[in-house]
């Protein structure tokens, strides 16, 4: 088991290194403009630009720049922003609670909707309730986030507030540690935005996987023993059928932690996603690099955790 985790860990680090190399090539070798010019701004003198170039190490040979870059990464030093001279890692970490609230809440809602609905649907496979669930799930999946977000904004904020029921705020973030209730009030609509889009996918996966498991011989055996149908479903069929749901969850959680651009934008959440967008808009290279590597880290970490969970769930795999 420990050997397996270490092997997976090594593989994850390899992936991260590969991504960091791609980032380096993109921003140091194939960069569309001179980073020093971007940093200096429009009214800089040649002397100032040269000074910046020296300070950023851009006048060094490429391999020296690469080792400096990798060395900095290994010390978790992503550099300072071109725009406001703030430490990139500190900025990302300051925004992480916003993105993490959004990501974990969203995935929790997905699973909380998908598992009961998937079970309901699979138990009635092919009949009218199942078809209604399937149609609803497909409809939800087909909505783009910006449409759902805008609709929710209009109905649940604008219309409700105008009618004299200011239940939901228009956006923004309140830290959980400051006021848990306000945090919840501010997060509900962003969660719903992402939930509508993702819950359908998860329901479809849960339903399909459970249906497949229900056809297994060991489920027939469970019934042949005289177990109650609920026990057959929840104790025998559901746990093994969760494998694809857990895998998807890991992938999505990793992706969401890297930042959700549209949802953060709609609801005025200053998370990692909106930081990345701002950085792209302002040409803030260190911040772009930081957010990319940060997102990659979460995807790799989530994958690693999911793989370990899957192994722990299956006694047949002894490592």
């Amino acid at each position, binding site marked *: 088991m420990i050997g397996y985790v270490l092997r997976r860990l090594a593989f994850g680090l390899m992936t991260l290194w590969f991504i960091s190399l791609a980032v380096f090539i993109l921003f140091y070798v194939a960069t569309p403009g001179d980073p020093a010019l971007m940093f200096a701004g429009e009214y800089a003198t040649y002397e100032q630009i040269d000074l910046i170039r020296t300070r950023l190490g851009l006048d060094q040979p490429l391999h020296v720049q690469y080792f400096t870059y990798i060395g900095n990464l290994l010390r978790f030093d992503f550099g300072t922003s071109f725009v406001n001279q703030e430490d990139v890692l500190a900025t990302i970490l300051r925004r992480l609670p916003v993105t993490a609230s959004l990501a974990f809440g969203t995935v929790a809602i997905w699973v909380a909707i998908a598992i009961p609905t998937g079970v309901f649907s699979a138990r009635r496979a092919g009949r009218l309730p199942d078809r209604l669930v399937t149609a609803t799930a497909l409809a939800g999946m087909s909505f783009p986030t910006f449409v759902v977000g805008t609709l929710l904004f209009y109905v649940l904020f604008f219309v409700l507030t105008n009618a004299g029921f200011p239940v939901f705020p228009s956006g923004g973030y309140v830290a959980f540690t400051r006021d848990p209730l306000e945090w919840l009030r501010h997060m509900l609509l962003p969660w719903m935005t992402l939930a509508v889009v993702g819950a359908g996918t998860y329901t479809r996966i849960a339903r399909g996987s459970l249906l497949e498991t229900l056809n*297994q*011989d060991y489920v*027939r*055996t469970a019934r042949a*023993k*005289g*177990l109650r*149908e609920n026990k057959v479903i929840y104790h025998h069929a559901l746990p093994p059928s969760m494998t694809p749901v857990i895998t998807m969850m890991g992938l999505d959680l990793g992706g969401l932690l890297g930042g959700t651009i549209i949802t953060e934008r709609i609801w005025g959440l200053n998370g990692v996603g909106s930081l990345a967008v701002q950085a792209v808009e302002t040409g803030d290279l260190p911040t772009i690099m930081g957010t990319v590597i940060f997102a990659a880290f979460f995807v790799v970490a989530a994958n690693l955790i999911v793989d370990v969970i899957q192994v722990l*769930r299956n006694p047949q795999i002894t490592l």
Partner: protein
Amino acid sequence: MFLDIRNLQVTFQTETGAVRAVNDLSLSLDRGKTLAIVGESGSGKTAAALSIMGLHGSSARIGGSIKLDDQELVGADDETFRRLRGDKVAMIFQDPLTAMHPHHRIGDQIAEAYQAHYSAKKQDVRRLILDMLDRVGMTDPKRVYASYPFELSGGMRQRAMIAMSLVCNPDLLIADEPTTALDVTIQAQIIDLLADLQKEFNSAVILVTHDLGVVAEFADDVVVMYCGRAVESGQAEQIFDHPGHPYTQGLLASVPRLDQERGMLVAIPGTPPNAGLTIEGCPFAPRCSRTQDVADDLCRSVLPPLVGIEDAHTAACHLAANDAEGRR
């Protein structure tokens, strides 16, 4: 009669239409006796067995009558079947590897079968199961109790499966091809074990199989099925000594024997017809070597009824009555 099945029909609704898996099957069985249902794949033998336990899905329509201890099971509700399953009627499946839950320990899987019907203290259940594992010939019951199915050999898995089916002391045990997935040497052990346990528990046993060797060793009565119908039934000696249906004759001829000269194995030509088709006449006629012995091409136009050819021995063949006459 303990188990009495009359005119059983099992029909599956599929996307391409209705498929009749069991057609007009009647059989009966006493406590302590073994009935073998013999036939090739798709002959409806498993479908018939599963309908006794109500294990068909919602796509199946069951007709006729199944009486177990005078209780009618056709049309019984889910809860009636649930109480029956595992307690009064238990089943042993063909492949114990797929039939057992891969992520649950053997002991827990057996305990569950008991606890579905009886409540008892945890230690008592454990003791009962260890005893049961011992009785099915496990040398180290404690280790087996804590094992997962994949950790056991095929033979041990099937022993565990048998322990699971017997834990509530069922009146009727249905063994669906219990030895097919096992090595030949293990097959004999399992059949011996089943025969011993049957005596001990005095259960009625339905043995679903295509293995005539197993039938000869273990069964009191035999029903031969073809295309969802019983084509012959009788006591085991009757069927083996003078089979009345050309299909049974073919099956027996295709078993290699040590006391005869070696040569080519005898095979029945052709394959069984598709279950979805409606057949005029005898379903076996296209593969039968004796249709020319019957006048007016009767085999291809009239379905032969089961006729008695001797006491307790019937066959569904136009020639059976004549053949029996000739023998006398």
